[in-house]
Structures are given as C-alpha cells and as structure tokens.
C-alpha cells in the first residue's frame, strides 16, 4: 500500500511520521505526477488558502479531483476545507464532498482548544486538537457526520472513501484515525 500526503504546505511531516509508524510507504505530493500509483491521499492541516493557491498554480486541481473519484482521501483541518463544496468564502476548493464548512469557526488562536471527541466506529473517545479549526455546518446527500462536540458542533464526516476531520490526529500519538483511513483504503472504497 502506498499513501500520498499533499506536501504543498502545512503539517505533512507529522502525517508521514504517523504513516511510517504504521509501516506504510509514503509519497510527498507536490506535482500531478506524484499521484501516480498511490492508493490513497491525505490532505494535511496548514493554511487552506495557501494550499489551494499552490494547487491551482501547479495544475493539481483536476488531477486531485480525478484521483479522489477513484481513491480514498482524508482531509484534516485545512484539508477538510479544501475538500468541501461550500465554505462561503472565495478561495480554491476541490469541492469533493457535499459539506458546508465554516472556517475559523471557534475564533482566533487564543480560542484553540483540546478535548476528547466520540467518533462513530472508534471504541473510545479520541484526543482532538482544534487549532483555528473549521466546523461542519451541514453534511448533505451521501456525507454523514461521524463526530460531534458535547455542544453538538459537527467536527468529522465521511462519504464512502472520503473522510474529513476539523482536528489534528497527526499531532497526537493516537494512530486510530490513521488506521481507520488505511482500512478504507484496504476495503477499496471509491475504487
């Protein structure tokens, strides 16, 4: 199994380290040809405007959409924004998942927080860091909310092989969401 991590900007090294820990071969994706031969892709946290603009400049938008149509893709934080259809702001989006996302939904950096989140399909709550994080306002059609905060705010969703999380599993020592994503790849979701 070979997993790509979009390495235009952001916390891609943390995802790569977690995948290595799980014994997975990883490729850094900066140009369209780097998608060849991958079984799945992770879009990391970072600044979504920066990632979107760099993807546009280097002709990655259509290749990423084509890849996602046939493979699992997981977006964390900025990656979730980038995969959304609607965010109410003008910036480059892949528009894969039928979700409405609000950027910086919890406030500025002083409002960033950590808590434990119950996620559908995981045995125990997951330690989650929300850093200038987005939230899900709505998931439509095939997209299902799979995690909410205590106040009901939606923070993760899935649509077949597509997974999005507002928070950063790559900044924790907990590999369960990475393992979950790899299980989607093994099942051949979206293929």
């Amino acid at each position, binding site marked *: 199994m070979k997993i790509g991590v979009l390495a235009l900007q952001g916390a891609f090294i943390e995802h790569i380290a977690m995948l290595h820990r799980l014994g997975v071969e990883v490729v850094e994706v900066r140009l369209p040809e780097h998608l060849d031969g991958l079984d799945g892709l992770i879009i990391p946290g*970072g600044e979504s405007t920066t990632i979107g603009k760099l993807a546009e400049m280097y002709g990655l938008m259509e290749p990423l959409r084509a890849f996602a149509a046939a493979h699992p893709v997981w977006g964390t934080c900025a990656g979730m924004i980038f995969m959304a259809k609607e965010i109410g702001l003008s910036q480059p989006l892949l528009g894969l998942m039928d979700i409405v996302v609000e950027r910086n939904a919890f406030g500025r950096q002083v409002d960033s927080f950590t808590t434990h989140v119950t996620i559908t399909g995981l045995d125990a709550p997951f330690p989650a860091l929300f850093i200038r994080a987005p939230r899900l306002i709505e998931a439509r059609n095939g997209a299902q909310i799979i995690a909410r905060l205590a106040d009901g705010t939606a923070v993760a969703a899935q649509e077949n092989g597509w997974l999005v999380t507002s928070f950063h599993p790559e900044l924790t020592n907990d590999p369960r969401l990475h393992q979950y994503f790899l299980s989607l790849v093994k099942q051949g979701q979206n293929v």
Partner: protein
Amino acid sequence: MENGYQNGRGETGSFKLKAGLAQMLKGGVIMDVVTPEHARIAEEAGAVAVMALERVPADIRVQGGVARMSDPGLIKEIIAAVTIPVMAKCRIGHFVEAQILEALGVDYIDESEVLTPADEQYHVNKHPFKVPFVCGCRNLGEALRRIGEGAAMIRTKGEAGTGDVVEAVRHARTVLGDIRRLQTMPDEELMSYAKEIGAPYHLVVQTKEMGRLPVVNFAAGGIATPADAALMMQLGVDGVFVGSGIFKSSDPASRARAIVQATTHYNNPQILAEVSEGLGVPMTGINVDSLIPAERLAARGW
C-alpha cells in the same frame, strides 16, 4: 508547563496548541505588512500568516527613533482584512505590550529585536499567556533559552531590514550545526554543554533525542528573493519570514507569489528558475558588513 485555561469547549492555551499552530505554518511564508491592503496582497499571494507592523524593518532603520508595538487600531484593521493568522511584535521584555496584543486577538506574538528592547536583562515570561510567542535566535543556546521561557516557535534573527541573507544563513547554520554536534555527544557531556551554552538541561536532552529543535524553526532577517527562501529551506528550516523584502520591492504581489512557490518547491531548481524570472527590482538592501555594531539588531536579546 500547562496553564489549565478552559473555554467551555475544552482546554485552551496549552503549549501543545501554541506549538501546534506553528506546525500548521510549516513550509509557508509569513510576510510583514503595514496596511490592510498589503495584508490582502499577501493572503492572495499565498502567505500562511502576516506580521502586522507600522513600519517594516528597512524603514525603522532609515527613520531611527524608538520602535514600539504597532497601534492597536492598525492591528485590528489587518485582523479584519484577512482570514489567515495575524502576528504582531512586542518589544523584548515588554510584557504589557504582549498583554495588549493578546487582548487584541493576534494569533502569534513576535517578541522581536526589530523593535527597541524594553528590558536589557529579561525577556517576557511567555508561559502564562494563552497566545503563542515566536522569538529570534542566533544559536542553539539562545533558541533553548527562549523555548524555556515559553516560546512555541523559533526563528533565526538574521539581520532584519537589510535584504542581505548572510546573517540568516549564519544563524541557521549555527543552530543546525549545534544540533548536529549535540547528537554526537555522549549523554554524560550534556549537562556541561547545557551550562556552556546557557540552555535548560531538559531542552538540551530533548533536542538531542529529537535531532531538531523541539518547536518549529523558521528563517528570518534578510530574505529578499525566491532563491533566498529556497536556500534557507535547503539548509533545513521549516519556513520563512519575509519582512521588508516584499513590500520594498518594485512588484510586491509577483515577488510574494514567487517566494511562496519557492518555499514549497525549494528542492526543484527548474521551478525556482521559472518563478525567479521577471520579478522587477528587489529591495535595494544594505550590506551587513557596512553596519556599525549599534545598527545590528541581532545583537539585541539575552
């Protein structure tokens, strides 16, 4: 050290959250801006954050006088203008300026040698703040002292406002070289080494174990071209600050975009050649060798 702040959703202001935001900025370019219009140009070019200032370092050099924290009104306007994180500078040791910046909702505070120091002995104790701090350094000891005080991100000092990359290179090579040497030291030498460089012992141990600084490490101070940014990235930093280099050049939008691309594709000379073409005149710059000691900002900080 954890603060134990809560906001109803969970714990806030922890070191992990402070350092975590810097992790999200990696591979990116943080640009100095002095107006909301500059901030929008920077965001449009792909900056990961902006540094809100009244004067870029090159103008502080020319105009002289005491350089202080920016007007809160200007910082608020810049915060309102963009969706990316906004940083602002306080003077070294000026913890009240830092409190004000935290109250304004800036996302990162740069306790910066570019401003005139307020305290010639002590830096701000950064642990009690909910907002994270970035601090400058010239070597490993200085970096670890700042982290020991609570800095969640480090940058080389370089020599701000010169457009001369030589000091940024010197400081990056010194820090990264110090870490490489540290990794070859047997553990019994670490306490004496910590004493020698004036660094907290536990951070020396942690740096040896990790083989890198325990927090994100950017380059700053003199970066003016896409090639400068890529040079710093190839030397091994996590991202770059560009101060005067963008808005003191003839075509800031194009130069900003090019430096963003060069920071991502720092290992691809073909792309570096393409993005370096036709950017107009870079900032004029000052040769660092021509500065008298009193004009060297990097010497500020203890």
